[in-house]
């Protein structure tokens, strides 16, 4: 990310220099704009560390107080958003340590290792005619456009997203729901493209399977 731009929302670029000067002067309009632009991403990142929504909210609030009171210490060596997110992750880690909760990006959560996208039993085995090819193939969803727009399907997906492991939920939420690019997500979380894709893949694969189960089990 270039050091002279703060990109937190897709398509929005604001000069860091102007923003920092305005924040130092206590300009409320600039602050509110930066806050509303950054909030969704900050809340999702904080939630990946926190035990609850309320704690995530607390982390975000503490971060903003630290940003306003500490803006004089911002030296412009990184982008403003990078600086803000480093404060956020530090606040989040402090909370995690207090709650004796594992920091999401520092360990492998159980069940995340070697998790296949599709149950291996659905593929032909080595001694079958076509090893690695479908034994139980996916059945096309009937009228997916209409059915996936239903409130019930969306609620089901929302609940499934909320139930993903922390890191998968964070990456799928940032990429697919909030619409951030892989570059933005990798920059702000310090992830490689490949590892970001692994998490995205596992999250999306689980969600597809849950939607499949739901659509197969309900009337077309």
């Amino acid at each position, binding site marked *: 990310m270039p050091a002279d731009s703060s990109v937190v929302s897709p398509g929005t670029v604001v000069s860091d220099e102007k923003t920092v000067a305005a924040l130092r002067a206590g300009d409320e309009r600039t602050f509110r704009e930066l806050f509303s632009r950054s909030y969704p991403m900050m809340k999702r990142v904080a939630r990946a560390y926190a035990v609850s929504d309320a704690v995530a909210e607390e982390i975000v609030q503490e971060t903003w107080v630290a940003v306003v009171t500490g803006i004089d210490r911002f030296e412009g060596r990184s982008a403003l958003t990078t600086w803000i997110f480093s404060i956020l992750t530090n606040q989040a880690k402090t909370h995690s340590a207090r709650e004796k909760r594992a920091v999401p990006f520092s360990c492998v959560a159980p069940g995340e290792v070697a998790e296949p996208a599709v149950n291996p039993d659905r593929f032909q085995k080595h001694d079958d005619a076509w090893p690695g090819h479908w034994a139980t193939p996916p059945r096309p969803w009937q009228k997916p456009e209409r059915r996936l727009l239903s409130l019930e399907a969306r609620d089901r997906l929302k609940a499934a997203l909320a139930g993903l492991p922390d890191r998968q939920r964070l990456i799928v939420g940032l990429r697919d729901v909030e619409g951030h690019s892989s570059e933005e997500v990798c920059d702000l979380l310090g992830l490689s493209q490949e590892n970001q894709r692994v998490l*995205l*893949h596992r999250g999306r694969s689980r969600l597809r399977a849950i939607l499949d189960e739901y659509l197969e089990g309900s009337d077309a």
Partner: protein
Amino acid sequence: MHESGLPHDGHSAGEIDPSDEVTCQQLVELVTGYVEGALQPRTMNHVEEHLVVCDFCVTYVEQMRATIATLQGLEKHGSPEPPASALAALQARRAAGA
């Protein structure tokens, strides 16, 4: 945050380096790289060749795209009123500068 905890395994969304063709079981692990346009050209060709002859995998890819489209339609996080404590700190800055 760092990435040391992320495993590299045969089920990752990265390249599997298929020698001459992709199986369905490999394709379901390459699908994210495929829809993101992030596969190596050689792997991309193998995936595309597979999709020409395998309707089941076409169905799978369509379902993955429909899942992504549905996620994109979910409500984004709204932004609440900024915390009063931060607004107070901002007010203090204005007062100090005045």
